[in-house]
């Protein structure tokens, strides 16, 4: 059961968006987030919404998967809306006891809500259509120029992909240790928070020891296979831009331009 966990909630299907170069998707997501903060009128948000809908449609990912990502932020969304609603000064509309709802408050709160929802959905589209592996490749490639100022870009990407590979293994191991401790009478369930936290010690200590042992083994195995950092290294699956990626970039630039024009200047 634990083996089946896929990280980054990748949704396997074949669509134009899936086939795009991961760099395009990463850059697009960034641009999209920026666009959400540039626009500050309804026309802008309608454009952003339409763009998002179009992309979701193209990605062939069922809409409910996008909603799923939303559950995690419901609470945050609520707080943001409530605070904006009541604490924005301006022309008062309704007064409930000591709290006043202002016209500006409604405007800000609804913008904030739309912004957050679009933001989460936009980044979900990326994680749903890109494997974690591709994403690390894209990050390595995009951060490439930082090598000049001695940022260990390759090493960071390698660490990310190794971490991703070991998450299921360590989860399984946690499960195993937990069962072994339960079999010896350990209690992970009852008691208050402090007691529960304390009961995790016999779980975490063996887990850490084994993780270090694994790290040591893995380092040795990597060295035995001639790993010596990013230099002189070739790629089995090098990222290559195709025609569709160029088209995607053009669309993104157009979208940004439209957003700036409609969402900022026309107001």
């Amino acid at each position, binding site marked *: 059961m634990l*083996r089946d966990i896929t990280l980054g909630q990748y949704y396997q299907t074949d669509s134009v968006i899936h086939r795009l170069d991961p760099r395009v998707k990463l850059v697009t997501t960034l641009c999209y987030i920026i666009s959400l903060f540039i626009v500050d009128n309804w026309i802008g948000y309608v454009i952003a919404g339409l763009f998002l809908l179009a992309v979701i449609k193209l990605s062939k990912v069922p809409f409910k998967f996008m909603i799923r990502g939303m559950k995690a932020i419901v609470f945050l969304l609520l707080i943001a809306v409530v605070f904006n609603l009541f604490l924005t000064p301006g022309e008062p509309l309704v007064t409930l006891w000591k709290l006043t709802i202002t016209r500006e408050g409604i405007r800000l709160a609804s913008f904030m809500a739309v912004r957050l929802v679009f933001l989460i959905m936009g980044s979900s589209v990326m994680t749903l259509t890109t494997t974690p*592996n591709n994403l690390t490749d894209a990050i390595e490639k995009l951060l490439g120029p930082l090598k000049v100022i001695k940022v260990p870009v390759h090493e960071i990407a390698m660490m990310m992909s190794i971490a991703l*590979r070991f998450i299921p293994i360590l989860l399984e191991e946690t499960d195993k240790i937990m069962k072994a401790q339960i079999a010896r009478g350990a209690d992970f369930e009852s008691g208050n928070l402090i007691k529960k936290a304390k009961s995790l010690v016999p779980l975490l200590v063996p887990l850490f020891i084994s993780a270090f042992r694994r790290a040591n083994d893995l380092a040795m195995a*990597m060295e*035995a*296979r001639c790993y010596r950092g990013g230099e002189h290294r*070739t790629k089995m699956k090098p990222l290559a831009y195709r025609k569709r990626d160029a088209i995607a970039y053009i669309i993104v630039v157009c979208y940004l331009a439209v957003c700036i024009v409609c969402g900022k200047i026309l107001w």
Partner: protein
Amino acid sequence: MGIIETKDLVFEYIRRDEEGNVEGITRAVDEVTLDIKKGDFIAVLGHNGSGKSTLAKHINAILYPTEGTVWVDGMDTSDEEKLWDIRQEAGMVFQNPDNQIIGQVVEEDVGFGPENLGVPTKEIWERVEESLKAVGMYEFRKYSPNKLSGGQKQRVSIAGVIAMHPKCIVLDEPTAMLDPNGRKEVIRAVRALNDVEGITVILITHYMEEIIHADKVFVMDKGSIAMEGTPREIFSQVERLKELRLDVPQVTLLAHELKKAGLDIADGILTVQELISALKL
């Protein structure tokens, strides 16, 4: 000169206490001199702590000798400039299959070695395909390693080593964590490599059944070579093996006991078939 040669190889582990003072020195490998011919299937036996894994790590230049020398294909392993050539020529497969697979997809893991060597992309794909086919894992190339059985994972690890085109491959107890079926799978793959591709194999194990097909067997005890010879020569000395705390295959043991009881059969019977024909005569 063989593909792997060691001369008076000594390796010492230094144990330190918490302040870093030397507490004691353990000699893990003690004056080992070996000469391994190209294309041979070599088995190294020994109970836990006999120094066999330490010896194996010298062949891949993961450990360097405290005293003595190791040559891999004529290159001295303590020569740092040759380090990567040595590691390419002498591949290594470790015990725990989970801790040596780096890729998140089988084919990517097999490609890891060639990537490190700087092989052009097109050739990496050719090498990956050819090595996965050699161990019979080609149809699993798109799988996540987490979904494979232990034996399959070890075969992927072996493919990962073959993709680097080594002349020799060292397997450090590759079957210790596997079930009997997985063990058979792995040993079959290793034998095929030796027979078909002519790669020199050094198999480190404590399962006696796995060494029957070896060309030469070394038995290690307390860091030095206690016995050496063909499997038949080794297994004919049942008493000596017991002294070294090693188990003998059941058939060999039965034949040995029968002989002791007065039956006239040859020493060093290795397989059931051999015993049957010996008893028929």
